[in-house]
């Protein structure tokens, strides 16, 4: 017995999103969001074939999915992150948002858009990941959020790069 956390994955059918969805499906209730409706439906069918215990909902609204979610994962291209962050700002207060990125250039923008969320920026290079820390006021101080990231990514098969990256 235990409460199953709901995780919204924005960009569920991207390469990275796909890996996360499949590795998290057994432990979390997933709310999948993507602009590609066809790929989303294929992904859901694949998950249901893997196990009948999976709880997967498809959503075409970022805001609605994130409103239901306990944790939000952004697995979208850098140039989409800001607009998505704006769309879910109202329902993301105090929630852990894991921004999976291949570039740290948008860190400041997201932190500014989501000042009351527990934003954790994760840089993924291949199969390894690092947590991006910003020195100063915007550093994610929520230990629970960081631990959530460790748990989710480690069980997804990613390897934690112990050398954290500090941004000036």
């Amino acid at each position, binding site marked *: *017995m*235990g*409460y199953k956390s709901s995780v919204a994955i924005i960009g569920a059918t991207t390469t990275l999103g796909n890996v996360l969805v499949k590795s998290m499906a057994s432990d979390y209730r997933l709310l999948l969001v993507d602009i590609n409706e066809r790929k989303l439906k294929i992904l859901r069918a694949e998950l249901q074939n893997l196990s009948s215990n999976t709880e997967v909902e498809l959503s075409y609204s970022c805001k*609605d999915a994130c*409103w*239901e979610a*306990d944790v939000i994962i952004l697995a979208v291209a850098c140039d989409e992150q800001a607009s998505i962050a704006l769309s879910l700002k*109202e*329902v993301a*207060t*105090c*929630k852990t948002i894991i921004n999976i990125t291949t570039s740290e250039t948008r860190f400041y923008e997201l932190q500014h858009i989501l000042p*009351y969320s527990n934003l954790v920026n994760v840089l993924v290079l291949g199969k390894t990941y690092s947590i991006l820390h910003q020195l100063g006021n915007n550093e994610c101080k929520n230990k629970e959020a960081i631990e959530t990231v460790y748990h989710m990514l480690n069980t997804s098969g990613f390897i934690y790069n112990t050398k954290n990256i500090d941004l000036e």
Partner: protein
Amino acid sequence: MFEVFFIHVNEKVSLTDREKDTVKTFFIPKKLRKKQYLLQEGDLCKYLAFVENGLLRSYNVDDKGYEHMIQFAWEGWWISDTYSFLSKEAASYNIDAIEDAELLLMSHDHFEEMMIKVPKMERYFRILFQNNIISKERRLLSSITYSAEEKYTKLVSNNPQLIQRIPQNLIASYLGITPETLSRIRKNLLLRS
């Protein structure tokens, strides 16, 4: 999203717009679907939940699998396992949604922080807890001294619209009677009216 909440708060304390903006930053907006759990017995109750929209219940399941209703919470009501929330020990209750719901959740740390940053909210919660104690005393008295019919009549007169939203078996459980007894009571009341 905070409409019902601030109407409720306004009944007890008056907040400035700036204070309202600060208060909002301490809450997690959360949607629950019908039958979805907010809390399961044995887990740690991490949040106080305010119901903006929808209907929730808290209940305990005994060794024989019977559900015992503790509380219903609809628009404008708070719901939690208060003992677990304050003591950080395992919850005794389950909380789930009878209807799709929109909630505002507050963690223990944010509860403490909000009291410091918006001191008026301390008065709000003091009044809330006072009313809660009174309500629980009345319910205890009712369960000891009232007949089943009196309990049901009182519940209906205090919450006429709510009765239409809650399944009869849950109302029976809340009153501590069987569904068959409730059905008989309702039939007798109908015949007399």
